[in-house]
């Protein structure tokens, strides 16, 4: 193969990537090998770090998370050198900025992501409930429906599933809870101060902890996206927090709940709160150790082109990084909520990766471990946050 690309490991994501790559192969006449990487982002990052640390030319094009450009920049080429000067002009500027490190464009936005709430239309209708606007409402509704469904014989039915394993996904989930409260809390603010020990956070975590074994199975503490989707898609959950990619899957022909699913913005933290979605999304970068950087850049350009993004939006409900596509009829037909949730996507809150830099993985790790402890019921929220505060101080040391 002339090039090697690593793109998602999750089933549909991988297939979409393969399809796109295949099209480029047909068009350009080059061959590309698609390698699969671990499901979990944490794992994937460490793999990349090893690859790049080894200065290995094994992977030319990498799919990198929005939080990684800062960390990986030294190992990535400046795409400006290989792409036309106006290459980035149609993209969300915020993401382009995110991907520009010291003036070098290290990655092209590929798809953006923000957490959304999936719900079962049929069941809410059945029990005459509204789509919840706050976490509290969600809790109530989940409780009601869960009790009802269990009564009706589905003893494995749960109210809410999310990503609760101690990994990056939990950081995202928890940040969404915390940020949704009025004056939304943060872990580390833009100035680099450690701010996690705030009342919103405690409130949010206390509520989340109450879900376990109430409306969420205890196993959720070991769930990633796919496990959550497994439960939801097999008809065993009322609500699910997930990324937009799941839309296409739950709406697929084999899905038990096809056409019974709705998607809304995540609930807000209380009456005065606001819905908060954490910015996710992935970008395509070219390794500095690639033997064919020009060719690789061309592949990146192709994959991030409007046609390709549109196709991915329609086939896989991946959020385009081109504002224009959010008005595209065909896209909206396939994924109606792209229109309704446009604000959610544009105003998604970033994780504190920029300010914490190299130490972000530790910060995230400390954070999700604490949250996990709280969710497991091993510590009270406040107590956990106290601990986290000092833990983060320890990590911060003499500075980020």
């Amino acid at each position: 193969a002339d090039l090697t690309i690593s793109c998602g490991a999750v089933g549909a994501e991988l297939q979409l990537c393969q399809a796109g790559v295949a099209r480029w192969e047909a068009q350009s006449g080059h061959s590309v090998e698609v390698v699969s990487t671990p499901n979990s982002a944490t794992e994937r990052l460490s793999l990349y770090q090893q690859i790049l640390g080894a200065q290995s030319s094994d992977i030319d094009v990498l799919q990198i998370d929005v939080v990684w450009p800062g960390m990986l920049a030294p190992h990535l080429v400046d795409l400006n050198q290989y792409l036309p000067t106006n290459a980035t002009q149609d993209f969300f500027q915020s993401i382009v900025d995110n991907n520009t490190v010291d003036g070098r464009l290290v990655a092209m936005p590929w798809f953006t992501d923000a957490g959304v709430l999936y719900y079962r239309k049929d069941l809410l209708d059945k029990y005459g409930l509204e789509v919840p606007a706050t976490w509290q409402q969600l809790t109530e509704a989940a409780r009601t429906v869960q009790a009802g469904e269990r009564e009706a014989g589905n003893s494995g039915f749960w109210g809410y599933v999310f990503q609760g394993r101690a990994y990056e996904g939990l950081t995202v989930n928890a940040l969404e809870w915390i940020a949704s409260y009025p004056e939304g809390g943060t872990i580390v603010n833009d100035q680099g101060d450690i701010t996690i020990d705030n009342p919103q956070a405690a409130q949010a975590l206390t509520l989340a902890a109450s879900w376990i074994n109430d409306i969420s199975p205890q196993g959720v503490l070991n769930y990633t996206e796919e496990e959550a989707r497994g439960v939801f898609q097999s008809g065993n959950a009322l609500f699910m927090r997930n990324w937009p990619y799941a839309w296409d899957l739950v709406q697929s022909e084999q899905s038990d709940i096809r056409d019974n699913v709705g998607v809304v913005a995540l609930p807000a933290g209380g009456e005065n709160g606001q819905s908060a979605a954490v910015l996710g999304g992935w970008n395509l970068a070219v390794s500095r150790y690639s033997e064919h950087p020009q060719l690789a850049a061309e592949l990146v350009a192709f994959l991030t082109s409007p046609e390709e993004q549109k196709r991915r939006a329609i086939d896989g409900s991946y959020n385009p990084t081109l504002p224009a596509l959010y008005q595209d009829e065909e896209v909206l037909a396939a994924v109606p909520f792209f229109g309704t949730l446009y604000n959610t996507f544009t105003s998604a809150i970033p994780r504190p990766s920029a300010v914490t830099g190299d130490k972000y993985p530790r910060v995230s790790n400390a954070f999700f471990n604490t949250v996990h402890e709280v969710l497991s019921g091993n510590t009270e929220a406040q107590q956990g946050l106290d601990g986290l505060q000092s833990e983060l101080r320890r990590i911060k040391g003499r500075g980020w």
Partner: protein
Amino acid sequence: MTLRTLKGIVLKIGFWLLVAVLMVYAIFPFYYALVTSLKPSSELFQVSYWVDSVDFSNYATVLSQPTFLAAIRNSVIVAVSVVLIALLLGLTAAWALGRVRFRGRTTVMMIVLGVSMFPQVAVLSGLFEVIRTLDLYNSPGGLILSYTIFTLPFTVWILTTFMRQLPDELEEAAIVDGASPWVTLTKVFMPLLWPAMATTGLLAFIAAWNEFLFALTFTLTDSQRTVPVAIALISGGSQYELPWGPIMAASVIVTVPLVVLVVIFQRRIVSGLTAGAVKG
């Protein structure tokens, strides 16, 4: 009399019950993996204790993945090479340690023993560097080299014990016949050590076949991965299911050869371990 026979019967029943419990305990997980792997995806989430209808689709899924086949190939290459290298180096070292008295022998033995208790993580970064320097990163060569860290010590240890058990007179006879150490080792000892080498080789094979941490750390691309990593990283084979079926199928596929080997060699393994561990 009757009391005695009654007691005998009760004892016998108790014994067979114990055997049954142990058997179930030992093989049920593997059996369950087999059962799971033979279920069509639609039945995956219904717990059942046996297969009603055999369905090979999971196997088809796994075996049709080129990455999995590559992983199997890599595992075979790595494991076989590791065995050969460990046996070759182990045999020569075992001769030196087992049959020659020289100053520093105990020290070497202690070093070998010490190496065998290295935590893998403790050498991870240094080894990473060595492998990078040797340009073996993300290639079977890197794994082969790194696996010697745990296969070599016990190979040396076990073979040394076996080597010691060979009668001194045999070697002296060879000396009187004018044989050099190398001739003695290859022409006289090696043919006699085949059983020990088979045991040690098998143990090394299993260790190399099963190794995970180095394989995860020192390989990156699917084409270079070994089976344990491939299995650990298997994710949705197709879009709409949790990949338990394929994972179980893959597990069964990689386990069966080992189980067969172990069953064939079980007696040898016992004696090999006896020699290596208990007397050593």
